[in-house]
Every structure is written in structure tokens, then in C-alpha cells.
């Protein structure tokens, strides 16, 4: 097992930081913090994981869910605007360029949206996606196809959604 060095951290950051932040934005309003903590946690590992990319997505998801629960507790007391788990929309306080994509993905339900982000921008295999979200590889593929179908129907009236 190769050790975790600065080269691996830099490579993971350059290739997957943005996708990890998009992935974490499904649950928390502070996706950058979750991504940074996940990369630091990777540096603490004595040996590199078998699949660092899948490992990072799992860690980011766990941290994002924890942040979401903490945020809900704060919102209950402070009545601040926070993202609630299970809603079909993103709460993304990041750059404006991300808003259009998040609006597009907001039409999907949470489990399906997660699979789409992992497949399209994370580049994970079907088995890795099944490990992250839980369930079988066939169910992940089935949900992915359903998500693409929903997006096509959502864009169909506009015929060219990216114009």
C-alpha cells in the first residue's frame, strides 16, 4: 500500500475538489469545509486507500450529513435559513456559476441526484457508487437512467436546456 503523500493530496484536490463540493452541497450549505476536512483526513491515513476517489466521496458525504444535522439544530434555535435533509432543492451559498447546475439538479430527488453527481462529475464506477450510496450496482444503474429521463423531460419543452 503506497503511503499518502503531498502528491496524492494535490492530485485529489485538482481533479475532484469541485465535484466533491457539488456533491456535498446536497446536504450542507458549507460544502467547501467538508471537502477540505476530507482531504486533511486523507493526509492522516498511514496508507493510501485502495480507491482514494471513492474514499473521499464517502468521507465528504458523512461530514456533509453531520454538518446538516448540526445546521438543523442551529436552525431550530436560531430560525436561520438552512438546508433541511430530504428537500428537493439545493441550498448553495457558493459562486453564482454553480446556481444554474444546482437548479437543474434540484428537480431530482435526493438519492437520484446523488447517483448522478457521483457518475457524471465524480467518475466513479457503478460498484463504487453502490458502495457509497448503499444498495446494489443494478439499482444504482436503474436510478441513474430514471434521473436522466426526468432531466430530459424537464428540458424537453425547452428542446435546448443549455442555451
Amino acid at each position, binding site marked *: 500500500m503506497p503511503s*499518502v503523500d*503531498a502528491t496524492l*493530496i*494535490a492530485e485529489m*484536490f485538482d481533479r475532484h*475538489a*469541485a*465535484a466533491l*463540493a*457539488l456533491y456535498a452541497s446536497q446536504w450542507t450549505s458549507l*460544502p*467547501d469545509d467538508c*471537502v*477540505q476536512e476530507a*482531504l*486533511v*483526513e*486523507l*493526509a*492522516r491515513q*498511514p496508507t493510501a486507500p485502495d480507491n482514494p476517489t471513492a474514499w473521499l466521496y464517502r468521507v465528504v458525504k458523512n461530514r456533509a450529513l453531520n454538518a446538516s444535522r448540526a445546521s438543523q439544530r442551529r436552525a431550530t434555535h436560531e430560525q436561520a435559513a438552512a438546508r433541511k435533509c430530504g428537500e428537493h432543492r439545493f441550498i448553495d451559498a*457558493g*459562486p453564482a*456559476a*454553480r446556481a*444554474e*447546475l444546482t437548479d*437543474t439538479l434540484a428537480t431530482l430527488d435526493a438519492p437520484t441526484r446523488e447517483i*448522478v453527481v457521483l457518475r*457524471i*462529475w465524480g467518475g466513479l*464506477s*457503478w*460498484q463504487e457508487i453502490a458502495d457509497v450510496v448503499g444498495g446494489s*450496482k*443494478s439499482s444504482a*444503474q436503474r436510478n*441513474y*437512467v430514471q434521473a*436522466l*429521463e426526468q*432531466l*430530459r423531460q424537464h*428540458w424537453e419543452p425547452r428542446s435546448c*436546456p*443549455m442555451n
Partner: protein
Amino acid sequence: MSDELRLPEKLAACEALLAAKPLAATGIDRDQLLYRAGWAAGAETARLARGRIAAWSFGSAAVAASLAVTIALQLRPGDGRDSIARIEDPVSVPPPVSRAAVEPRPTTPPGGTIAGRSVADPSAIEVETLLADFATGDRRPLAVRRPMRPSPVDVTQSFAVGDASYSPPAAAKTARQLLEEILPASDADPDSTGPLRLWPWAGLNFGEST
């Protein structure tokens, strides 16, 4: 389904459109992230090294302590049993005795002589002393001369072990009778003016009616 999912043409087009969308850059400072990652990796390595050092130190201390205990046990002077003083019975109770011949241990009488006279036979001095004491009423029990097993040195006892070949008389006798048995007939004369009689009490009555 295989890992390579075959999508319909329309779904593949939507997939391509989504993949073409650029992702917004994160607000993470790359240099700060790498700095923090390096610190975290070094701290974790130091923590593991401390744990290993502590384990080695504890193991070395345990080995040293066990060696010290082993050496101390080996160098200890004797075991506990040797330190226990053997308490010997200072007074060995002699077996029941009868009034038989007595062979006292040679001892120096008070004053070194008997009635101012020197005696050639040291054992006779003891007998004389004993019988003198007996005459004066110091009737201490007398040990019988009979074969006995060697007993420890008895400093409190006044009499030594007798001759193993001696056989006690059949019946109890008086001191006079014993003297007559021991001494020749000429020595039994109390009025004799010859050589010194060893038994000055020849003229004394010990309960025998005249």
C-alpha cells in the same frame, strides 16, 4: 447490467450535456490545504511513534525489573529454612530410672579438692561429691547407667551417659550395699588407717539398721 451502461440516444445526449457543464471552483485555498495536510500527517506519525516508544519503554522496564528480582533471589543468603534457628530441647527428659549405679560426669568440686585431699581418679571425685551431696540431703534423681542412644550435649545435666555394657542390678539396693559391691572388703573397714579410702562415708548409715 455490465459496468458500461448502454443508454438510449436521447439519454446519452442529456448525459453529455450535464458532463459538459463546468463546475464552479471551490473556495478552498490550495496552499493552505496542503500545509494543513502536511501538519496532520506529521502529527499522526509522531503520535504513532510516541506510542511505539512508550511500548518499548514499558517492555524494557518490565524486563529490567524481572531480571533484578531474579538476581536478588539468586544472591539471597540461604533460604528461609536455614535462618530458622533450630531449637533443640535443652533438657532432654531421661527415661525412667531406677536406683542403679551412678556415673556422674567429671566435674570439679567446689574448692578444687575434697576435704583438702587430692584425688588421683577424677571420676572418683565426682562420685564422692555426689555421695556427699546425697548424704547432706541433696537427693537429686540419679541417671541409670544403661545403653542409651547418643543425645545432644546437655549442659544442664550433671551426669553423663553411662557405659553401654553396664547392666543394672536386679533389685534396689542401699548405698552401703552398693559400696560393698564396688569396693574390696578391706576398704570397707571404717577404722582402717591405711591408704586413703575413696569412700569416706563408709561409716555412715544410710538407713540400714545396725
